């Protein structure tokens, strides 16, 4: 029984990690006032690029890096269109997802069906400790990295001057511009960070979660990540909680039948999506709360005409 609980917890961690990365990146992007709906596309492109790199180079490090860079490349495209060319953030985000889905399928056509042994455990010796060893130390570097990144982001946003500037740009770009801050530059950087995180999330999917490439393998996680940011009311700490909640629900779907639920697998698979909707309803019902916490200038184009 103990063994089952520990195994379940471990699978929850693996299911939650990509969500943590993707939503954390989007959180920072949104805090700067940019709404990037292309997370799904960036995740998929990151996933296929890291998998391809690992496959051809054999280096997991290069793979992670490639995923990161691929996400950033797409984010750069998004930033150029929305920030420099003033296109609609909603439409461009949708385009990024459609493009990312197609591009990843194109890149990955020859990689379908190839397996890969996955990322190595970071601390194999400690993982051999009975009972809790595997739960605490039996993970790869990206899992520990996700916790570190949440802590670092939280510190960055609330304690550093750069974080303050980023929040101010998201709150009112006109005021930030009037004080002499480079609104566009800050937003470029925040969007690129979001892309890098989405790419990492993708890399985790194709290198650790299910170490292979399947078309559309993110299965809506990019969109769930977007919902998580709302759920977390733009606070990194709450985001971690939300991601693990969702990880738990998606594990329920895998282990549902083992636990004795006589429900068709397709219906169990609906759970994460239905939960997302439910959570959004619960959090949005108090409109004032969203309005107080959401970056005030989110989704609005900024053109320094003065």
């Amino acid at each position, binding site marked *: 029984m103990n063994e089952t609980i520990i195994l379940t917890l471990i699978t929850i961690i693996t299911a939650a990690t990509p969500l943590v990365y993707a939503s954390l990146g989007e959180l920072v992007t949104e805090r700067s006032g940019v709404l990037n709906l292309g997370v799904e596309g960036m995740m998929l492109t990151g996933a296929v690029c890291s998998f391809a790199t690992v496959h051809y180079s054999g280096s997991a490090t290069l793979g992670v890096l490639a995923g990161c860079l691929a996400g950033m490349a797409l984010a750069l495209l998004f930033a150029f269109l929305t920030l420099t060319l003033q*296109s609609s953030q909603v439409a461009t985000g949708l385009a990024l997802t459609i493009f990312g889905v*197609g*591009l990843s399928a194109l890149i990955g056509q020859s990689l379908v069906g190839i397996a890969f042994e996955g990322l190595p455990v970071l601390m194999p010796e400690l993982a051999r400790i009975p009972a809790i060893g595997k739960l605490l130390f039996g993970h790869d570097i990206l899992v520990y990295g996700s916790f570190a990144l949440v802590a670092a982001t939280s510190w960055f946003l609330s304690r550093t001057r750069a974080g303050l500037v980023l929040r101010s740009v998201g709150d009112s770009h006109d005021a930030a511009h009037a004080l002499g801050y480079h609104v566009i530059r800050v937003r470029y950087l925040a969007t690129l960070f979001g892309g890098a995180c989405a790419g990492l999330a993708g890399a985790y999917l194709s290198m650790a979660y299910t170490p292979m490439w399947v078309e559309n393998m993110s299965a809506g996680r990019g*969109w769930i990540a977007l919902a998580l940011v709302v759920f977390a009311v733009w606070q990194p700490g709450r985001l971690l909680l939300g991601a693990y909640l969702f990880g738990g629900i998606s594990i329920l779907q895998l282990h549902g039948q083992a636990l004795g639920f006589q429900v068709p697998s397709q219906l169990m698979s*609906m759970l994460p*999506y239905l939960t997302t909707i439910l959570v*959004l*309803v619960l959090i949005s019902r108090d409109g004032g709360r*969203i309005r107080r916490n959401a970056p005030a200038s989110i989704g609005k184009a900024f053109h320094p*005409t003065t």
Partner: protein
Amino acid sequence: MITLHRRASPSRTMGWFAPVIALGLTLLAGLILFAVLGVPLLKAFQAFFIDPVSTRYGLAELGVKAAPLIMIGVALSIGFRAQVWNIGAEGQLILGGICGAAVGLYFYEVDAWYVLPLMMLAGVLGGMLWAAIPALLRTRFNVNEILTSLMLTYVAALLLSYLVAGPLRDPDGYNFPESRLLHDAALLPRILDGTRLHLGAAIALGIVVAAWVLLSRTLLGFALRVNGAAPRAGTHAGFNQNRLIWFVLLAGGGVAGLAGLFEVAGPIGQLLTTISPGYGFTAIIVAFLGRLHPVGVFFAGLIMALSYLGGETAQIDLNLPLAVTGVFQGMLLFFLLATDVLINYRVRWGRR
């Protein structure tokens, strides 16, 4: 460095030229893509843009593919005009297909005139039902419709896959996840002999005209445009925003559901685990490419349909992956969004 200078008023010329420039740039980028993939350019060009429409059958196929894109594209463009972002048309399409097919299967072997109209009604209602969920959540609980409508698309796909593997599975189908074939009275009549072009194409044209009148001539259409451009001005002038949201989502869902039924009762003829190659998503591109104008959407739908056909031909003739189509569509939308800047700004190179 690029700098932008806002025009005093949007350029009308650029409004027409921007999509053309975007198409040209997409072609150029496509040729580069083919070059990278090592495909002879001329052959690729021919496979993509000439071969598919060089026969009567091919042209009819263009209509078959364009009909759902145009229908949904028009419906979505009305919503986008009003800043209501229904991006779950794919799910509404699936629900329409499911409901319509379920009615058709219920009347299996019943040879009566009312079967098809009932199926169409069920298709519309199914799509509306699916779109009513985001509408309810948006108007009642202030939940962003982008995320809910999209989440429901995944739910719809899973529902379809469950139904064709379970309750709606063909009893004589050797456990394949597909329904029975619909009988003749439940199939859409063909409007061109020897092709698959069906009644749905004519209805799609009707929807284009109806949407045009709605947007340009009716108070409701005016209210939608105002709501999109300045929601507070709409409220002040007495337009009820929640009612507009309901209308837009129900209309979009209904049309998408009808398009789903057309797929099931038209080219496919039964329920499968996938009944659409992403028409609901591509329709988003169609709506933007058509500049959110019904007539523009009509032509945009034809272009996008060609990209589907071209992708299929290229897959057969040149052994290119079908994913090329998605890349093409994404690129087109990017270029379109990028060239839109020309409408409101003059673009200059160099410092401010």
